[in-house]
């Protein structure tokens, strides 16, 4: 497991002496050259516009520019937190995104391991291509598809559910069904696409390890547990950390399109709310404040997860 040996050697150098960025610069100038283009683009396109964050603390004033409006401090944050909808929004957002992570995160891992077990090459290719396809369906169409297939009178799934004895259940209308429908369709759409990264990690497993395991008499299940899963663990942990950093973000467009007056109590999330109050009526400051609020929560969760991961597995984003 190379990543651990890498970590070890870092520790070794640490013990010898403490090189600094400056003292290693001459040695590492090639590395600096290689990373420079990325640093420059990120500074220009990501860091420069960040001054816009202060809009969250100012009254937007067109004539005075983005940085010229009156400073209002936390007014917009207070407005959001005191808003009638605040707790409903937080609850709905967390419910949807945590369910998506808990159910949706393991799915592509399992799929990748499954695909990796198939030895019939053509079958494997067909399955792989099929599961990867739904990723390209635009959200408008996906929601349309859901409407057609789940319709209680005419859709195949709707009819199936009715046959199974749930007479008169309209999955699109029910508050209880909203989260499952959202999450399952999300998995359906992205599981194949998300499994690609794990397949790539599995492809790099050293074949000698398989041979060694077979010689030891390991059965298939043991190979999965002792060879394949360890090989994708670093990827899993990194992706899990990154996923935790999106806890308070949900897919805006899909939820917005799936909303109807019956599921509204569960389907109004922060991002749809921002759209309704912010974008439509151009309340830039309010929208910026809610955006920043989201970012802060997401970023703190990422920091927490990263620290845990570092303690437990020595894997860290930085």
């Amino acid at each position, binding site marked *: 497991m190379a990543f651990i040996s890498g970590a070890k050697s870092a520790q070794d150098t640490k013990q010898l002496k403490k090189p600094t960025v400056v003292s290693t610069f001459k040695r590492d100038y090639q590395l600096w050259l290689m990373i420079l283009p990325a640093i420059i683009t990120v500074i220009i396109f990501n860091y420069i516009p960040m001054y816009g964050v202060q809009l969250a603390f100012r009254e937007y004033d067109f*004539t005075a520019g983005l940085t010229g409006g009156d400073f209002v401090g936390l007014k917009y944050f207070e407005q959001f937190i005191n808003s009638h909808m605040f707790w409903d929004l937080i609850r709905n957002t967390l419910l949807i995104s945590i369910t998506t992570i808990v159910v949706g995160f393991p799915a592509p891992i399992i799929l990748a391991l499954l695909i990796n077990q198939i030895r019939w090459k053509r079958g494997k290719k067909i399955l792989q291509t099929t599961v990867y396809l739904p990723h390209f369906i635009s959200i408008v169409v996906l929601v349309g598809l859901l409407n057609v297939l789940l319709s209680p009178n005419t859709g195949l799934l709707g009819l199936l559910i009715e046959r199974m004895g749930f007479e*008169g259940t309209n999955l699109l209308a029910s508050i209880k069904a909203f989260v499952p429908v959202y999450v399952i369709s999300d998995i359906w759409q992205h599981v194949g696409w998300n499994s690609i990264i794990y397949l790539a990690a599995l492809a790099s497993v050293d074949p000698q390890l398989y041979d060694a395991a077979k010689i030891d008499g390991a059965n298939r299940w043991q190979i999965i547990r002792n060879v394949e899963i360890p090989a994708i663990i670093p990827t899993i942990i990194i992706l899990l950390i990154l996923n935790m950093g999106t806890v308070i973000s949900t897919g805006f467009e899909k939820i917005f399109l799936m909303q109807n007056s019956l599921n509204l109590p569960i389907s109004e999330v922060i991002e749809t*709310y921002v759209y309704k109050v912010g974008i439509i009526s151009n309340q830039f400051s309010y929208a910026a404040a809610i955006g920043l609020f989201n970012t802060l929560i997401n970023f703190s969760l990422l920091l927490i997860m990263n620290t845990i991961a570092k303690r437990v597995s020595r894997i860290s984003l930085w």
Partner: protein
Amino acid sequence: MKKYVSLFLLITFLVVGLVACSNDDETSSEGNEETEDGKVVLTGLITKHPLTKDLEDMEWLQEIEDKAGVEIKWEEVTADWDQKKGAMLAGGDIPDIIVGPNAITDADFAKFTGLFEDLAPLIEEHGPNVQAMFDQQPKTKALATQDDGQIFGLPKYQRFWPETATMQFINQEWLDNLGLETPTNWDELFDVLMAFKEEDANGNGDANDEIPMDFAPIGTGGFGFFHPTVLLGSTGMTISGGGGQGYFLEDGEVKNFFVDERYKEMVVFMNRLYSNGLINEEAFTQDYTKYQSVARGEGENAKVGYTYGWERTDRFGLNVADQYVSFDPMAKSADYSGDISWSYDYDNLNFGLNLIQMSSQTENKEAAMKFINELYDPEVSLQVLFGSIGPNIEKADDGSYTILPPQDEEMDPGTWKWTSSWADNGPMFISDELEVELGEDMKAVGEQQQPFIDAFEGLDKENDVFPGMFIKYSDADNNQMSLTNTDMMNLTLSKFAEWITSGGIEDEWDSYVQEVEAIGLQNNLDIMQGYYDDYKSSME
């Protein structure tokens, strides 16, 4: 290896270079450009309907650009304007002319001060046609003028549109088949729908394929056309635009029906219909396409008994449209003797806000104003609405006009209009003096409107119709109100759907009213009442 280094350096220089030379060529796009034959070059943006053909193919537009001595480079936007607009306005990066129905709102004028040109002085000098519209239809002037007398966006007057967009239709053939009368109140409607459900009304041998009642899907932002809120008219309430966010006017007082007892009565009635299986169980979840296709039936077999729509053929398709009739608004009960009203949409349909505006950065404002003025010439306006004289309109020797049927036989007149021209999205003044023979679709609308016109006969338009579009709110009031309304819609619309589908309104009503009040409804009503009173006194 050296290759790699040099490639990297190249890329780095490229990036740095892009930054360095960034501000240089900015000035080149500005400047008072002219074409070779001396025409002023302007930039324009239009939010057009997705069906509308390319602007360069519109004969009338080329003609008036020539006449005004301008050549306009158009950017044609058909989708996602709201997202595009924010960045464009905040970036101060707008074309000389923007066309589209309320594409730039009064709230935008208030927020982006100085970005748009005050047209008032230009109209006096170069806008005789606009002036004529203001004189003949004073309402248009009220629509255009901001509180301080400035004019940023110009309105339209469309003249021929009816008094309501939402008509109710019932399947006359089904009534005849079952020996029933057209319902005149809610209880009769209930009985009729019950019969539609129980019996084989369309006579195809299947007693279960009839959908007694259907209405258009209700969004999450408020009520609109083709929604069952028109039934509130049965209680004497006059709503506009299908109900919107619930605000209406009664005896000069601004109210909101979401906390009104009469609304409660209506919801109770709807729940009675729903729980008896008389409303399409997909009414709240289907999309508009499905709503339309279900009502078109299968072959000669109609599917829907009672529903709402713009016009018979449009709603039911050619095969079954003949089976349906529009009919008088109903009373809420047999013993109800008060007024009966409906959704009054005349102003919404015939007037429009901010159809065209000019950037204050425009180099040659005079030329731009001349172009705008041309659009309001009555004959041009007619072409803005229906298409060019020649392919779309016939002009007789006596100066009267006839709207021609579609050249493409597969197309209906409505679609044809939207394909050929800016249609309802354009600025226009259809003068009452023009003599026009309308197309089949508009004639049909006119005929089917009669029941509703009768219902509006006794309507006191001054005191019972809220003049929503004529009122200009300040930026702060606007923000405040829209926040409250967003929260309120979230609660009220979901309760509306819940109460109809699963009941419970009797128990929850009082706490619901309290919650709506807590969101801040009264504050909004006070704001609106203040503006309304000002508006009313300014009209006198």
